[in-house]
């Protein structure tokens, strides 16, 4: 575990711990035992998080966090006759794509960071845009924009965006019987 990974893990555990204690106290304050079960669950989670915190503090930089062996690797090793080169390659590929971790999702290469920021911005703008001008316009405009940003050809971006906007219109009007131009701007 790298220093930054350890720091992020500790911070998240602490945040969850503070949340669970706050949650348990708040739930315990409701009358007529309305928050009894939630408060108990909150306390159990707090205890589990304290255990986790102690363990994480005990891990030295460079030492691995004790975790379940990736099932595919463990089982491939137990195959009768072991694994051939081709098989090992396939297993490694799956582990690489399946075993998401700090390295693949937080400590990003510049290219991956750029892509992550783009898709996060798209998601947030989609949320805000849907509230402002409704789903149809938001879908069309944002898909067109992100495809251009992804260096797709102009006609591909335009066709894809128009197709999705029409599909959204059909969904909103045809299936939900809702107003396609709803939102803060159109009322």
């Amino acid at each position, binding site marked *: 575990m790298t220093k930054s990974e350890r720091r992020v*893990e500790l911070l998240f555990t602490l945040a969850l711990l503070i949340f*669970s204690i706050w949650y348990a106290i708040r739930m315990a304050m409701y009358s007529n*035992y*309305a928050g009894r079960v939630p408060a108990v669950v909150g306390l159990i989670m707090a205890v589990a998080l304290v255990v986790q915190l102690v363990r994480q503090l005990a891990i030295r930089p460079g030492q691995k966090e004790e975790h379940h062996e990736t099932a595919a690797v463990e089982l491939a090793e137990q195959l009768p006759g072991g694994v051939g080169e081709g098989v090992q390659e396939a297993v490694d590929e799956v582990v690489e794509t399946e075993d998401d971790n700090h390295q693949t999702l937080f400590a990003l290469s510049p290219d991956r960071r750029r892509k992550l920021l783009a898709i996060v911005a798209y998601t947030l703008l989609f*949320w805000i845009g849907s509230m402002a001008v409704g*789903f149809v316009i938001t879908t069309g405009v944002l*898909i067109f924009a992100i495809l251009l940003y992804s260096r797709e050809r102009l006609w591909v971006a335009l066709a894809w965006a128009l197709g999705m906007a029409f599909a959204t219109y059909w969904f909103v009007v045809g299936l939900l019987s809702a107003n396609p131009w709803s939102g803060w701007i159109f009322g």
Partner: protein
Amino acid sequence: MGQAVLDGLTQLLQLEPMLYLVLGMAIGLVIGFLPGLGGLATLALLSPFAFGMDAAEGLAFVLGAYGAVSFGGSVTAILFNVPGTGEQVVTTFDGYPMAKNGQAGKALGVSAASSAFGGLFGVVILVLCIPIALQLITYLRPPEVFALGIIGIMVMGVSSARTVVKGIVSGALGLMLSFVGLDPVTGIARMTFGHLELNSGLGITALTMGMFALTEMAVLYMRGLSIAQSGRAAQGNVAGGGVWDGVKHTAKNWKYVVSGGGIGAVSGLVPGLGGTVAMFGSYGYVRSRTKNPDPPFGQGNPLGVLAPEAANNAKEGGSFVPTLAFGIPGTSGMALIIAILLGLGYVPGPDMIKNNLDVVFLIAWIVAFSNVLASVLGLGMSPLFAKLALLRPQLLAPALIAVSFLGAFADTRLMFALGATVAFAVLGYIFRAMGYSAAGLTIGFVLGPVVDQNLNLSLQIYGPEFILRPITLGLLALVVVGGLWGPTRRTIKARRDRRAGVSGEEHASAVAGTQSNESEVQR
């Protein structure tokens, strides 16, 4: 029970449910061919559409798609060496070499036939287990139902998180989030902060869309490779000839279909084992039972495709048993199926077996039909749709994010759901990176009301001593033993390895010492 079997079949054999079954399977196959999308994303994306349908249509649509995704994944495993799901890597071991040797059609035929027969085997196991479950549930009272809920959450959380504690935290957080909203007993609003939208809770659709669909899309977009690019060699002629040869080969080796089906069904029956154990177990079994295989395993032996594919599909039938009878999901997919069943108005567990047995058999029929039809449809669609694997995630992810938001909105018709979806997506991404369990959180969220209600009832009826009821105590002890089993086993193994390492070093130094003595003597 016989009547329930017929009722289930009659409900399915109507025009609309059958149409939705075929439509669901077609969507499932397409999603199966698409890069990086698996059963979980399929269930998350389709669930809001199912909530607007009646039970037979909704279940046919969603379960049809879920069943077909797996076959789509097998096709990409065989043709592109890229499995649809992690466990399907086993199919690539011999499927891809077969395709490279010009036997793609035969490999697809073997995969289709063994998937269909394996799936049917799983359904038979499901049907055989229902009478046993009917007997067992007569012993269940609120304390036992509460304990089963806890088992379900712990099994899911612990088996899919990186550490046991992270599994427990995931399940507990799911429970905590499920308690937001009106208390069903007192009607007091909990953690709503005066927002009326929160009175009915945070919403399961927002959770599944955020934690599974949106997170998946973000990761997919970031990786940025279509499966055909990451896979090394797409075949020119997708299916090729020899499909029928594959089907005949499967029929000839029916014993391995049965053994694979058996291993798969048992893996499904035991919550937490899942498809990886089923497929690897079955592959290992067939390898150990075949003397002098020609061609050798790993170089294109059809039995290496047949056995794991049969196990993979049989596993689904098996894992429906604990899911439907006791509300304990065996796999992450089953956690989402529980959420969908709740959305359709059914509570998986003893109540469902007691009061909605026809729906249980309806599910069995859907799984049986979809297994056979998905194979046939899949073989037909492969030549056309396998090209979907060439689609770039840059095109797919933005469109599917739009679909996810629309789905979240469709469920509640509240814009609040969009904000909740974004929040869950952030949590899902952090969970994924740090090895917490999104499935554990989901099942905690889904079973929260069941746990809350039954714990309150238990306390009212039996007082705190409810915990000492024999079955409850046994079930809760199982939770503790299950939680401690992994770490204890690892500690023992590490100690044994250390000891072996020490004695190995001692042996090595002794040998070195002897050798140096010998050389000195020689000198």
